[in-house]
Structure formats: C-alpha cells, structure tokens
C-alpha cells in the first residue's frame, strides 16, 4: 500500500510551518511521529494535499517542569521518552503507568505524546490520562498561542478542536495539589491491539485523605469518557473498602460501552469497575505501607 500523492514540506521553524498551513487553507496536515497518520494515508482514509513534517523544527522535544510546577511536554516528545523517564513515576504516576502500554515498543520510539492527543482516537491512552489529570493543549496559530482544555480539545472520534492553521505545540499537565497517586490499566488481547477497556486514575492525596480525584476511560465510548465527576465521590474521604466500591460503581456507570467482538457491554463495564477497584486498592495499600 502507498498513499495518494502529496506535497511534502519540512519547515525549520514553527512560524514557517504555520504559514504553510495558512497558505493551504485546510488541505495540509502536520506530520510528527506519523504512527497514526501514515497508516491512515496508506489506507487512504485521509488524503491531505500537503504534509508538513515538523521533525526538523528544533526545540520541540522537551519534557520539563516549569516554575509553577506544570509538566510541559513538547510536540516532538516520543512515547518512549516518557517510558524511559527516571523521574516521571514519582511526579506523574498515571502517565508513567500508561507510557509502557501505548501501542508497541517499536511504535513508541517514533510516535509522539502530543500527536496521539491530536489524533483523538477514542481508544487513545494519553487522552484518558490527560482528562484524568486535567491537562490542556497549547495551540499556536498566526495570531499567537491559546490554551485548550483537553476536554474541549477532543471533540469526537478522530476530531480535535485545532483550527486549520494551528499546531498543537505542547501539552501541559498541572501540578498535583498534595501527593500525586494514580495509575493506568488497560485490557488488550495482545500488544498493539485496540483496548477492550482502559482506566486512568489520578488522585492528589493530602495525608490519607483524597484532595482531588480524576478519572477517564478509553475504549468504552465514542470518545474518551470523562469520569471526573463520577470519581469525585472520593474527594474528602479516605480510601477504604466502602469508598472504593462507591467510586468504582460510579465510574462504571459513567462508561458507555458497546457490545462487539471484544466483549459485551456488561463485560466491559465490569472490567472498568475491576480496574478502578484495583488501582484504588493499590494506592490504599501503598498508603498503609508509607504510614
């Protein structure tokens, strides 16, 4: 398979890239890691006239904590950069848990965090972690930069909120208010397959009490499911059998799965409940060990 013809541009600066998008009025697409876009153009699900390869733009491969404590992930940070980070598990356990579950190890050397968010696949691992963590995207266009909350960024399956002349230049994750805890669990039949269901949980702990609680689901709805309201039943509580079961029930209720060859809707909802319970139990157990 190979794609239909396109013009290839390899700008050296963001402004140059934005000018190319502007000049092509919606017919140009940004090419970063290409691990979703290239298969799609090969299958001819998409046939953009122009591909704008941003891999030659220097300074987009950063992953750093800024002065306000936000984690900033540039547009060319690859999945494996997060996977191999030695500090991420302590500061962002939810991201660290998801990093080694994205696609497969070879795809992870190339695909990007921000590109995965832009792709807006309902199965996307990173979208779920971003919704649970309350992150946002920084988009840059001809008139400068703007922030887009991740929940407003993903509009539906494979649809994001970027204007035709905008580039998602970074993803930003706010600091935990308290001690960060959380994880990401995913059920897949084999590595690289679409998930049957996956669950991202991110808690900010104040001592043994839950300060902020975030949760999102992938694979169990037409887009990433925002389960932040559902898991907020934990806020102000300690993690015990009763509060964990209430939270797991509420999150499972927020799922919107469909029956397909990966399982029935009931089964997928059951997986969601099991994963939420498992993540919260693990956090509660490590709390006890730390105490």
């Amino acid at each position, binding site marked *: 398979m190979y794609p239909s*013809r396109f013009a290839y541009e390899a700008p050296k600066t963001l402004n140059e890239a934005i000018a190319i998008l502007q000049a092509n009025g919606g017919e140009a697409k940004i090419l970063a890691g290409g691990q979703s876009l290239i298969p799609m153009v090969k299958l001819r699900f998409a046939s953009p006239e122009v591909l704008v390869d941003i891999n030659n733009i220097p300074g987009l491969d950063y992953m750093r904590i800024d002065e306000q404590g936000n984690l900033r992930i540039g547009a060319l940070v690859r999945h494996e950069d997060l996977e191999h980070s030695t500090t991420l598990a302590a500061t962002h356990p939810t991201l660290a848990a998801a990093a080694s579950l994205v696609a497969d*190890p*070879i795809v992870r050397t190339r695909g990007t965090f921000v590109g995965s968010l832009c792709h807006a696949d309902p199965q996307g691992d990173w979208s779920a972690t971003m919704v649970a963590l309350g992150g946002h995207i920084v988009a840059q266009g001809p008139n400068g930069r703007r922030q887009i909350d991740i929940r407003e960024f993903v509009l539906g399956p494979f649809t994001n909120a970027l204007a035709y002349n905008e580039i998602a230049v970074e993803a930003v994750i706010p600091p935990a208010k308290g001690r960060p805890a959380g994880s990401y669990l995913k059920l897949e039949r084999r590595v690289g397959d679409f998930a049957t269901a996956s669950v991202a949980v991110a808690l900010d702990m104040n001592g043994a009490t839950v300060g902020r609680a975030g949760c999102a689901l992938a694979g169990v709805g037409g887009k990433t499911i925002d389960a932040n309201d559902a898991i907020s039943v934990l806020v102000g509580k300690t993690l015990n059998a009763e509060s964990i079961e209430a939270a797991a029930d509420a999150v499972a209720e927020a799922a919107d799965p469909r029956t397909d060859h990966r399982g029935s809707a009931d089964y997928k909802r059951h997986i969601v409940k099991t994963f939420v319970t498992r993540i919260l139990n693990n956090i509660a157990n490590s709390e006890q060990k730390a105490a």
Partner: protein
Amino acid sequence: MSSLYEVIPPAAGADVPVRRITIEVNGESRTLDVEPRLLLVHLLRQGLNLTGTHSGCDTTSCGACTVLFDGRPLKSCTMFAVMADGHKVETVEGMGSASELHPVQEGFKQEHGLQCGFCTPGMMLAAKALLERNPDPTEDEVRWALSGNLCRCTGYQNIVKSVLWAAEKMRNDQPQEA
C-alpha cells in the same frame, strides 16, 4: 538514482515532484531522488535492493519491516523515505555477514530462533536495539522488547532463548574490567 512508484517497475514519471535526500544506509552514504510518498521500506527493498527488510502486514502491526533509525527500532513501512533525510538507517544486511555473524544472528542460529524466517530480520534488529540499551535483560524484558514483532512459527520460545544467548555472548566478549 531516482525512486518513484512509477519507476518501480520502470516507466518515466517526469511530472512527479521528487526530493533529493542523503541517508546513511549500513554505514554508506546514499544520495537519492525520491517521491515524497515513497515509504522507507520500499526505498530499501526496491530502490536499494536491500531485500532483507521484509514487508509483512503493511499496517504497522507485525514488525517484519523493522530497521534501526539512528539506532532505535522503527517500522519502515511507517515512515516516508524523505523523512530519513540526514539520518542513519541500519538493515539486517548491515548486521554481519555469512562468515562473520553478529552475536544476535549467531544466537538465532544456535537456539533455532527461526522457522520460515520472515519475521527474523525485524526480530534481530529489535533484539540488537534492546541489547545496546540493556546488555543483561531478563526473559520478561526480552519478551516486552519484542512485543511489537509478530512470529507465526516459533511460538516465540526459541526467539527469546536466542536473544538471551546473544546477550550472554556479548557480555562475555566484552573486555573484562580490571
């Protein structure tokens, strides 16, 4: 040399825009004119006649087309050749020769890590990248590192043994520190 889909098989494609790229393939610098939509795997196989890189699923799943791109494993069906401009690509042809096998190749021979051989080049390059980063992997780490490469013959058991064999050999071949 010009690589267009039109000239594989040969036929003039004068109106097709091409870009000149320079890539280092197995240590040798190559300058080529390529059509932007040409996939790296097709440049290697048809353009450069390096047919050791196999094209399997063609959908970024199977890993048969795995090459090393600046030392990291890459599915070459999922990169345009133009994107490799200025970069280094290593294929199975660059690993060793029949008389002088790379330890990973030797491992696959010793431990019967292949049957039909279709997945083998990709498996060996993914294994080489693993061992460069982690010279003493556990069995579990080998299985994880190869989880993007599919094999329909072996059941993976002997592939894992082959990689562990190579790891040990490469550690033993290292000059001992005083």
